[in-house]
């Protein structure tokens, strides 16, 4: 039996993993993936909440999140390609020409 609490903590853990990934990875692709993980954590929570409260709002939100994730990746990958074409690297730490 999956309890509400465990779902909650699972999603928090997943979210934290995503956050951690965003923070420590330098590769742009991995950062995008980490963001996906974060979004998925949110999606899990929404679905779980939806089943608890017995309304469909959460599931609709899940769909929306899915769309968001997809379009984000679409835009993101476009940029990834651009970046790789331009500088032959995906290291985000290289992206620091603007400062001050």
């Amino acid at each position, binding site marked *: 039996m999956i309890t*509400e609490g465990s779902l*909650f903590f699972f*999603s928090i853990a997943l*979210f934290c993993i*995503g*956050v951690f990934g*965003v923070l420590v990875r330098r590769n*742009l692709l991995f*950062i*995008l993936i980490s*963001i996906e993980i*974060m*979004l998925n*954590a*949110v999606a899990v*929570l*929404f679905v*779980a*909440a*939806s089943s*608890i*409260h017995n*309304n469909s*709002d*959460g599931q*609709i*939100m899940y769909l*929306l*999140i899915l769309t*968001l994730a997809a*379009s*984000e990746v679409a*835009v*993101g990958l*476009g*940029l990834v390609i*651009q*970046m790789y074409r*331009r*500088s032959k690297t995906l290291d*985000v730490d290289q*992206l*620091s*020409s*603007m*400062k*001050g």
Partner: protein
Amino acid sequence: MNVALGYALLPWIIISSTALVIMLFTAIKRDHRYTSLMTSLGLFIALIVQIMQIGVVEQHHELFIIDGMTTLLSALLILVSLLLSFLLHPWLQNLNDPKEEYYMLFLLATQGALVVCASSHFGSFFLGLELMSLSLVPMVAYKDNDQIALEAGIKYLILSAIASAFMLFAMAIIYFYSGTLDIREIINHFPRTANSSNIIYSTAISLLLVGVAFKLSLAPCHLWVADLFEGAPLPTTALLATLSKAAIFVVLIRLFSEGEWHNQTGVITIISIIAAASMLIGNFLALLQKNMLRLLAYSSIAHFGYILLAILAIKPSLPLTSTTSLASEAAIYYLIAYLITVVGTFAILTLLTNNKHSYPLTIDCLKGLFWVKPSYALALVFLFLSLAGIPLTVGFVGKFYLTLAAVNGQLWWLLAILVIGSIAGLFYYLRLILTMMEKQTDSTLLINTSSSLTSHFILSFVIVMVIGLGVFPDGLAQVIVELVS
């Protein structure tokens, strides 16, 4: 879907269908001029419809709330878009890449902002927000051969995705515990005192705050904004500085004028600190900044810090709130003043640079402008004075409103920081004005400037708005009073 709601949503329908038509049109035949005309026309019609709705339409839908405030600010947002759309054609003209998609993204971003502005539900809020953000990302990185635009685009994409994820997570947590996504309901269920679910709400609120602070580029989530302003194309920056921030702020105003937040001392403290930090950090970062766009970015941080004061001043049982809602008025007025001023500034900068200019756009580029192009420079002088809050400009009226509201709310130490920040702010605005009045001229920027009918219209419109609303603010003030109360 009844007719009244349809009428209420008519501006949105017009704008999104314009975007769709452009998409179809582009698929058939690329024509820059027609696309541009179509965009402006669509926005113009939407604006007229929206203005007609001000104070008339009142709709409380499950997802949207369309009332006086929404209509007024939507009209304003459309106006801003319309103004910017005039600039797109001359700017894109000099670009080698395909141009038509930009208009589409532009319209979609506007649409997103309008949705956010009217949202009363986490779902609609989220949809609008993402529509706006995701349209903005390609707009930021639109220039194909531009390294720093790409850099800015990537930064914005990643960071805004993180912020969205944070906000979504907060929504999910709230939904998990309350079972609803309707904002007003959530506010009403908000725990008045400390109890077991407090911890959950605290988590949610702090995550939500991160998202909002990021979108409004409030300190300490302000780091991205300067890079973005510097890297992104000028029209995109203008849109980013005005539309995206204003839309979110409207939600914030609504949130605060409905809930009883003064009991939530913890949240109030955090927001106070955010406001104070934004005022200080923004102004002091701008203090010696040489890059024009970074400077504007920092000044926008400070300005949103100022408006937070109005938000914080929304408390019941204060002298003026007993009869009217001074603080909300102040927030709205300041927002309007800021939008007009900033959009004017970007419009003029865009006109001046016309995309032929090589980066970076430093302050020195404006050297001697006053003696070469007096009309442009004069407009810029008024705009900077307005940003600095000098009387007879709309910015001053906004600041006055704000001060009155903050004094009314007895936010003394924040007011002290406001004073310090304003003085620092004056320093760099005046520096800009002075640079324009210097004797030597750096002609690289200025030679290109062409004067067309559009530019004349924009210049005069900006001056009339900034000075007109500064000298005779009463009309607008009365409208706001009516709509808010």
